[in-house]
């Protein structure tokens, strides 16, 4: 692909997401936002057309001023109700972007996502579609403990009818969210809370990043690392240490898990003959296990060493800071695992 120079600005992932929402809402009046406190202060007299919060993390800040409360809808705490309403609105012509505050809350609304939104097109013989994006926070790192810190994108990647998008930096967040909103299928969009404040160069304009295309975050010849979300950053840190030891890792960010850029992963393994997958989600039946199985199946002859996974343990996320710290795959652990197979 020919790289086209685009103007960029430095901004946080939170602001990049906000910009994507604003662009999408300007270009299509069918795009609406709904979620808990996404404007904040609905019906509070002095906030009639202002937001107090813009969502608990501020991702939707200032959107209500431009688009009004008919398009930026504060919902009650009623996940089955408003996620279900978002599915119904999507099936009848709108393009809602719903905010599920934390992915851990999916238990409250999974039927509406999985049995309704994800299956309706199939069940109806292709006659309907569900152009819905559900944005949700993931990730440990702020001591939010077991019910506000999970990743769980593997659960949704498992399910036919759902696309799963997991950006690792501000530029990807903007481009992927634009594509997700323009996409005609149900997209789960996972935002790592630890990355909201991380700043990076973000291209101007309204160009989306295609879903299903991974990105090589660092080129290298010795070991392929497939890293998801925040684990890209952890792996980049590990890569510096390893480089000092003469080991050059290639870091692939799949960016979307469903669909998955299998070709990019296999091409890299063809070069390095070694694979480590770094994933903050729990390890059983996970994206990491899925990618490992895919490479074992389609790329067995390319491998010179066992496939390794660096993941969270098979536990809920612990609260206490030192415990949470060992829960999340660290650069040290990633480096150690890479050393094991070179």
């Amino acid at each position: 692909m020919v790289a086209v120079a685009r103007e960029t600005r430095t901004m946080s992932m939170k602001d990049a997401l906000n910009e994507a929402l604003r662009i999408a809402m300007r270009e299509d009046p069918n795009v609406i936002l709904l979620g808990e406190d996404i404007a904040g202060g609905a019906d509070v007299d002095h906030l009639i057309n202002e937001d107090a919060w813009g969502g608990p993390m501020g991702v939707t800040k200032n959107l209500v001023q431009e688009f009004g409360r008919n398009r930026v809808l504060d919902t009650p705490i009623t996940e089955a109700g408003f996620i279900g309403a978002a599915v119904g609105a999507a099936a009848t012509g709108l393009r809602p972007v719903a905010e599920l505050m934390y992915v851990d809350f999916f238990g409250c609304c999974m039927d509406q996502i999985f049995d309704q939104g994800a299956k309706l097109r199939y069940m109806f013989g292709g006659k309907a579609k569900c152009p819905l994006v559900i944005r949700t926070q993931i990730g440990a790192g702020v001591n939010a403990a077991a019910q506000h810190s999970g990743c769980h994108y593997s659960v949704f990647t498992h399910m036919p009818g759902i696309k799963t998008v997991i950006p690792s930096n501000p530029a990807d967040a903007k481009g992927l969210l634009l594509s997700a909103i323009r996409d005609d299928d149900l997209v789960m969009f996972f935002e790592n809370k630890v990355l909201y404040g991380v700043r990076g160069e973000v291209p101007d304009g309204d160009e989306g990043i295609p879903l299903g295309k991974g990105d090589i975050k660092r080129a290298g010849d010795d070991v392929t690392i497939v890293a998801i979300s925040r684990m890209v950053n952890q792996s980049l840190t590990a890569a510096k240490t390893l480089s000092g030891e003469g080991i050059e890792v290639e870091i692939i960010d799949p960016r979307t898990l469903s669909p998955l850029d299998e070709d990019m992963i296999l091409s890299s393994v063809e070069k390095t003959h070694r694979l480590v997958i770094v994933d903050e989600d729990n390890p059983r039946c996970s994206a990491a296990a899925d990618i490992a199985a895919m490479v074992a199946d389609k790329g067995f002859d390319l491998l010179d060493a066992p496939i390794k996974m660096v993941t969270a343990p098979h536990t809920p996320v612990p609260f206490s800071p030192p415990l949470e710290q060992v829960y999340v795959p660290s650069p040290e652990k990633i480096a150690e695992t890479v050393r094991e197979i070179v």
Partner: protein
Amino acid sequence: MTTSLPDRERLLDAYTRMVEIRTFEDAAGKNFADGLVPGFVHLYAGEEAVAVGICSHLTDDDFITSTHRGHGHCIAKGVDIHGMVAELMGKSTGVCHGKGGSMHIADVDKGMLGANGIVGAGLPLACGAALTAKIRGNGAVSVSFFGDGASNQGTFHEALNLAAIWKLPVIFVCENNGYAEATPASYAVSVGDIANRAAAYDIPGIIVDGLDFFSVYEAAGAAVDRARSGQGPTLIEAKTYRFYGHFQGDTITYRTDEEVSRYRDRDPITGLRTFLVDHDLATSGELDAIDKKVNEALARSWDDAKAAPWPAVEDALTNVYVSY
């Protein structure tokens, strides 16, 4: 109630739809027993006045959500019966090309957002369809049909609250047929009248006789008018009865023969027929002719569906995504 009675043409149309539902369901039951219909089948016979009484007020621009007992809602909403028969058999000519079957039968072009295998799942979806109508300001409404069992699901309560605070143009229609599968509503529901649950959400809760077309029609007209004019949702509880069991194959040990025959004596189709004849709106001969026409058309549909091809095996992999 301000809704006036429907004119002759509309009444005959309603009669026809009710006969279509009954004929469809009787045949579905028989053909299920004969092994022609795979899977689960839940029949709507006995409840026809509810679907038809409500949907008589709707157009193709209005959306409905339905239940596992959804054939009647489909027919009342205008879904092609010929394609429905084929869908029940899993044939490629089915309205969902054999991908949905009895429990997921749908046609969004007719405003039919699907039968549903999950009890209570349709209520939030109907809120979403109503939200689309409200945001577009197109005057459309949505209707969610559900049973007494669904009124105990969280989605019922979440949907009523959401519709109430957003004043959504939606009508919640509880078809209380007395039983959630085998469990009586008198045991499982905390209130005698489910309509009373509307009070918790400060919306109107209306009880109608679900075996009487006019009772349903009148209340539905008022609720639809209210929704179309931006005054928000209504809960209608239709006291009704299913003539068959929960599903075909149900031994129905939980109901007495006496109870079943008491309700069968109040057959809603007989009721409407008697009204039409007594008020000189139609002769018995005219109504017999409608019955015959419906019977013949449905018999042709079954013959055609039997002869229709199965879906191609490759079709199992399509329609998961718009693009992937």
